[in-house]
C-alpha cells in the first residue's frame, strides 16, 4: 500500500524531488503515504456513510450534497495537511531534522510547501472518491437515494 500511495503522490501528482530525498524516504519508511492514502479514502467514506445512511433529512437537495462534498474535501485537506506537517516537522529522523535545520540545504523551504501540496492532492482525490462513493452508496440509501442526482 505504501508503494502504491507513494507512486500516486510521487508520479501522478509529481510531489517528489530527488534533491530532498530524505523527506520522501522518511515518509515512505514511516508509513506517511499510507496515512495520506487512508485520509482520502476513509474520511470521505465516513462522511458519506453519515450523509447517506445516518442523516435522516428527507428534504435533501443538490446543494446539500455539494455542501457535504465541500465539507468532506475540507476535512480531508485539513487532516492531510496536519499529517504531513507532523510527519515532516515532528519526526525523530535525525538526518531529516538536521537537513531542515540547515537553511543552506533548502530543505526547510521545500518542506514548508509540502503539506499544502499533499493537502491539495488529497482534496482532488477526496473529490473523486466522494463522487464514486456517492454513486455507490446512494443505491442503498433509503432517504438520500436521489442525491446528487
Amino acid at each position, binding site marked *: 500500500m505504501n508503494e502504491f500511495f507513494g507512486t500516486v503522490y510521487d508520479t501522478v501528482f509529481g510531489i517528489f524531488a530527488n534533491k530532498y530525498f530524505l523527506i520522501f524516504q522518511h515518509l515512505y519508511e514511516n508509513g506517511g503515504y499510507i496515512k495520506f492514502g487512508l485520509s482520502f479514502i476513509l474520511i470521505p467514506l465516513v462522511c458519506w456513510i453519515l450523509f447517506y445512511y445516518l442523516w435522516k433529512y428527507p428534504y435533501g437537495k443538490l446543494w446539500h450534497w455539494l455542501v457535504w462534498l465541500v465539507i468532506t474535501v475540507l476535512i480531508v485537506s485539513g487532516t492531510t495537511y496536519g499529517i504531513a506537517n507532523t510527519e515532516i516537522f515532528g519526526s525523530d529522523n535525525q538526518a531529516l531534522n538536521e537537513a531542515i535545520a540547515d537553511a543552506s540545504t533548502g530543505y526547510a523551504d521545500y518542506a514548508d510547501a509540502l503539506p499544502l501540496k499533499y493537502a491539495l492532492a488529497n482534496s482532488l482525490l477526496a473529490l473523486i472518491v466522494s463522487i464514486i462513493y456517492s454513486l455507490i452508496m446512494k443505491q442503498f440509501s433509503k*432517504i438520500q437515494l436521489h442525491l446528487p442526482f
Partner: protein
Amino acid sequence: MLFAAGVKIGSDFDTVIPIIIDPDTSNGDLNRTKDILRLYQEIRNQVDQPDDFYAQEIRTINEITVSTPVVNPDFFQFKLKDTDTNTFNQYIGFDSLSEDIAEKDDKNFVRLLYSAMNLKSNLDVGFKGNPNMGSIILNQFTNSEDFKKFGQTFGDDDAIFIVNSIFGGTGAAGFPLLLKNFRGNKNIPKHAKIKTAPIGGITYLPYFSLSKNEEINAESFEEKAKIAIDYYNRTIISLNQVNTLYFIGNRGNTNQEEYAVGGQEQKNKAHFLELAGALAILDFCKNINSITQITQIKEFGIEHDTQNISFTDLNIENAKQLSPPLTKFKMYTEYLDKGLSRALNTSRWTKSTIKLTPGNKQSLLNKNYFNSAEYKTQIQPFNNYFEEWIREMKDNKPAFTPFEEITADNALELVKGQTPKGNKSFKALDIQNCLLTDNISIRSKEKKHTMLIKMFGKSTDRVLSKRNLLIR
C-alpha cells in the same frame, strides 16, 4: 369514513353492502353520502389488496348480481315507486274515491288516520316525520326489483344490520316493516335463509332539534320516540324479531339543525352519535357467533360527561377502536393538505427520475401522480369530505374534538392533550415514506392509488405509534 380510515367489520365478513332507503332522492345528506360511497369505491378499486386504509370492501347489490366493476352510487339506494311525482292522497288512491256514500265512508275513515296536510304532502321529500305515512309507502318496497335482488344475493353467512331513527317518518316506519318482511315474507327469494339470518339494528333516539317548528316539529320528536319505542317493544323486542337492538340518543344540550323538510336544503351536520352508532355495527359483527335468539338491548355511553368529547372521554374499548384509525387518517389528510408541498419533487419518495437508479426504487408518487385527474377527482374530494366530517362533528353538540388545529410545523401535536417530544413537523412522516418507497408490497403500477394509500397507512402508523399518540 371509519372504513376509509382502516376499520374492518371483522368476524370473516368480507363485504359490506350498504342499502339506503329514502324516498327523498334529492336530499342533501343522502347525495353527500352516495358521493362519499362512490369516491370510496373508486379509490378502493385503485388500490391493490388494501390492508389498512380502505381495507373494507363495499359493494352495491347491483355489482354482485351483474358482476360489474362499474361504480354507480345510485345502486346504493333502493328506489320507491311513484313517490317522486305523487302526493300522498294520489299515492293511496284517496283522490280516486268518489263522493258516493259507499266510498265516502272510506274517505272519512282515511281522514281519521291522516290529516289534511298528510294527504296533500308531496312524497318526493320523504314523510316529514310521519311514520303513519311511511308505513304505507314502504310496504310496497318489498315487492321491488331491488329487494328481489337483495334476496337473490343473500348468502349462508350473511347478516343484516338496520340503521334507523325513531323520531322521523321513513326510518321509524321502515324498521318494523323491514323486519316483518325479513322474518316473515315468504315471497322474498331465499326467504328461509333471511328468516333465520342474524339481524341487528340501531335505533336513533332524538339527538338534535330544528331551528324552527313548522311542518316538522322538533318538539314532537321525543313524544314520537316514546310512542315508537312502545310499538317496537310490542312488535319487535317482545317477539324477538331482532337479535340485537342498539339504542343511542342525546338529551339536553343538543344541536339545532337548520330547518328543512327535505330536498337539497337538508344538510345536517355530522354528529358524534353517528360515529358512535357505527360502533354498534362493529359490536354486532364482533359478537356474531354469540348472539342469542332473545333480543338483546344495548345502549351507548361515554366515560366522562362532557360537551367536548375526545378519545380519552370514551370507554377504553371504544377509544381503542377509534383512536388509531381516525388519528392515522387525519394525519394522512392533514399531510396531503399542509405537508406535501414541502416534499413534492424534493423528497425521495416523490421522485421518479432519479439517475442511475433502477425502476423498482423510483417512486410512483411523483408530481404527475399528484397532478393526475384520479388524485384530484378521487383522493382530494374524499379527503375533503373527511375533513368536513371531522369539522362538523367538532361544531356539533356535544362536540367531538379529539384533534387540534395544526400547521406543518406542529403536525405531531395533532392529538388533543398530547405533546410529543422532539421535532413536531411532518418530517418524521416524510422519513418513513422514504423508508417505505422500495417496499414491494405497497407498489402497483396497475392500480394507481396503491402506493399512496398503503404507504400512508404504514407511515402514519409508525410515526404515531412511536410517539404513543395512538390508544392501543
